């Protein structure tokens, strides 16, 4: 099985809110305000792929579309012993929306050859669109299974992959024909592993494929069109959303009593 895992480097979502800034252009966050990390759901997708490879064999390629700094997350993936890594440099000044990213990824997939499974994270911790997987499935003309948290193969069923996906009510077991696109969510079994130090050191010496958008044959006009379809007109930091009324009182007993009364009034009307 050939597996492609699409990764995204994002501004550390655990950064303190107080450090968060909007960049001068006003349409995205200032990426200098904190560190850059691998998006957590992408890490879950990678972990799912690694576990799948351990059980069923195969090759894992990771790919990201981003600035040169995104090399870092590819090195992290290489330290987890993926087979190869591809960096598609976004030479565009603007942040690409999910449709653009999917278009670029699809072009890379066509250039890299066939994959049985293409994995993306469920959504990213920055813009959180949750659309790249869906767009990519359409770009590739493949089916899409979303919210998957487990992947396996049954030897008796060639050409099929067994998936478990989370639903609003619980979960579903799905059998999907390969090739297919899968978006991965987190559960207790795909908590990302940490790399062995030797592999981390090794990862710095491993080769990396770097392509520009032009090398992939992505037409600038198509990117521009897609970009124009959704335009961020404003990005603001919301003011404190509400004014907290602190319960006051002479004694702790009194304060607890007041707190209890407020809770009761809501509980009874609920």
């Amino acid at each position, binding site marked *: 099985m050939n597996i492609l895992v699409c990764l995204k480097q994002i501004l550390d979502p655990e950064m303190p809110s107080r450090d968060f800034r909007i960049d001068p252009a006003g349409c995205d966050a200032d990426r200098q305000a904190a560190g850059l990390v691998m998006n957590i759901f992408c890490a879950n997708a990678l972990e799912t792929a690694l576990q799948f490879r351990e059980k069923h064999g195969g090759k894992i390629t990771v790919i990201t579309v981003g600035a040169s700094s995104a090399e870092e997350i590819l090195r992290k993936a290489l330290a987890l012993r993926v087979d190869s890594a591809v960096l598609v440099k976004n030479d565009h000044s603007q942040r690409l929306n999910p449709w653009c990213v999917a278009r670029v990824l699809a072009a890379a997939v066509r250039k890299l050859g066939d994959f049985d499974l293409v994995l993306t994270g469920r959504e990213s911790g920055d813009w959180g669109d949750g659309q790249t997987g869906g767009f990519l499935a359409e770009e590739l003309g493949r089916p899409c299974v979303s919210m998957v948290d487990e992947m396996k193969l049954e030897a008796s069923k060639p050409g099929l992959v067994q998936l478990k996906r989370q639903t609003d009510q619980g979960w579903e077991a799905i059998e999907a024909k390969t090739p297919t696109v899968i978006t991965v969510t987190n559960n207790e079994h795909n908590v990302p592993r940490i790399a062995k130090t030797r592999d981390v*050191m090794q990862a710095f010496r491993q080769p990396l494929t770097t392509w520009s958008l032009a090398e992939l044959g992505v037409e600038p006009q198509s990117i521009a069109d897609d970009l124009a379809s959704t335009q961020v007109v404003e990005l603001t930091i919301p003011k404190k959303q509400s004014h907290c009324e602190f319960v006051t009182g002479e004694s702790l007993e009194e304060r607890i009593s007041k707190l209890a009364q407020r809770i009761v009034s809501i509980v009874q009307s609920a």
Partner: protein
Amino acid sequence: MNGELPTREVFWNVTHVWVMYVLLVPTMLVAGYGIYRRFRMWNRGRPEQRFDQPWVRLQFLFRHAVVQQATWKKRFAGFFHALIFWGMIILTVATTVVFIHQDFGLPIMQGQFYLWFQSLTVDIFGALAIFGVSLAAARRWTRPSTQLVHSWEASWILILMLVILVSGFLLEGWRIAATKDPWGMWSPFGYLIAMASNAWMSVPAMQWAHVVTWWFHMGLVFGFLAWAPYTKLLHPLTAVLNLYTAPLTPIGSSLKRIDFDKEESLGVNALSNFTWKDLLDLDACTECGRCTAVCPANAVGKLLSPRDVILDLRHLSRTQDDFTKPIIDATPALSPEALWACTTCGACVESCPVSIAQMPKIVDMRRHLAMEEAVMPDTMEKALGSLEARGHPYAGTQFSRLDWMKGLNVPQRADIQECDVLLWVGCGGALVERNQRVTRAMAQLLEKAGVNYAVLGREERCTGDPARRMGNEFLFQNLARENIATLQRYQVKTVVTACPHCFNTIRNEYPELGGNFEVLHHSQFLERLVSEGKLSPNAQSEAKVTFHDPCYLGRQNKIFDAPRQLVQISVRPPSVEMEKSREKSFCCGGGGGMSFVDEPANQRVNQERARQVLETGADVVAVGCPFCMTMLEDGVNAVRAADPSTRPTQVLDVAELLWDSVRNEPTTV
């Protein structure tokens, strides 16, 4: 015989003495082989330089091998050990005298020397040795404790020593009685036996008993000599070697640097990964159990036992010929669960009378788990992940490194031309709400004293201490190099920090990575400011204070007095000491990455220490470390929640106490 030169015949009524000389050969061969085997074992370790500074080493050896400084820390054991030790030394010297007198033909065993040394001194020390062995036996057999290893070997050693010593006295007594030795009185205990024998034994009976006992005594001594190198009685040799080659640096700098350009194995999972000194450590162990007795993890019922780490490694070194076999998890004491329980407090290392480095070996094995296998407790993994991504271990904190300065005028290094002192805030001091108050007190004290200081602000990273103690040496070195570069870029000479972990790392671990800075713990620096008159505290508070020594300040860097003096100038009543203080201080439970671990509810080191704090009846427990602060606060709260009758005790940093007294707002009780 009066008027003659006092002496005695060496063999007197024993004949065929040549048999003894013949037997000496196999004895020496067996004993020699025993020792050779050990040497060969140590040789299988990797190289390590431990023979520099011979003069310092000899002084250290004198203090620990002759004076036995460390052994005496346990009074009773120190006492009987000294009796046996000196008894054996004197008896060995006496035997050497006989040897020189008889076999080298140098007549030294005569005259005043014979009377005062060979007779009186030897007799007294022999008797004291019997007393010492009896005490040891009494402890071992009547007061079973988990500290001791209850082995047949240990008991046999005591029995054998007792029989050899007693039979020696019998021989002396019978000889004195049968030869009517005119100088017999010079051997008082032998003389007592002589008088007793005279009462009910004929001279021929005594001669016969003497011959039989002599051969028996000789046989036992030879057997004992041959056997000793195969038992813990090898320790007179190994202890001396181990003490001579002991680390000369503080415990705080006892972790080995890994050279990632060369290193083949990261950390230790095989005996062959240890250095020869580590392997010598194993053979030096006398099984005294002090390390386990002082281990905080062991005290709260965790699996870790530093003694068993050493003894199990020794067992493996003697039973498995293949030194490349995995050792982690080979026994329960070497299981990851045990290894991850270590707070790296260094109490085991401090307690060891023969300078065995238990904690560094535990960290060595953690290194293997963290770097080669990448498996560790989840919570440690999270802390390390955060260190890697954000340069601090507090995943999910909503604080930035600048938040604590809100409302204060704190100079940041990047904004000013130069400064005398760099205040190293540390992750705990910047990102943990409770410790931000300490940092604020510290900044205000520096401002008040007119110190030209600055902080690095966002440019500060974790020093790497938790990464290193959790076994990720690679991450440690990356963080350390980044910090060293920042400090060098700003030409920093003096660093002051309120975190003993940062203090220890910058002081002891940065130099080998090329970073040489003068580092002071804030208690040292503040004490200096007070003594220079730059701060004038008014000790008006009536709080009774006890000081909790941070392991990485006290035991590991031997700084005990500065923080105590600070306490004393900040409050009125004299402070009280906990039973376990200074070198013997009991860890708060937060070192070695353990403050990021969620311990089982009934196995929390911090609560044990909190109970010790509460026993003193102090109003305030003063600390000098951000980890101690949170661990003890949680501990005191938990103990008080379980028993609301407990006295309320505040946890305050020494800087907070000082600030209260400097700004004339005495710490309230």
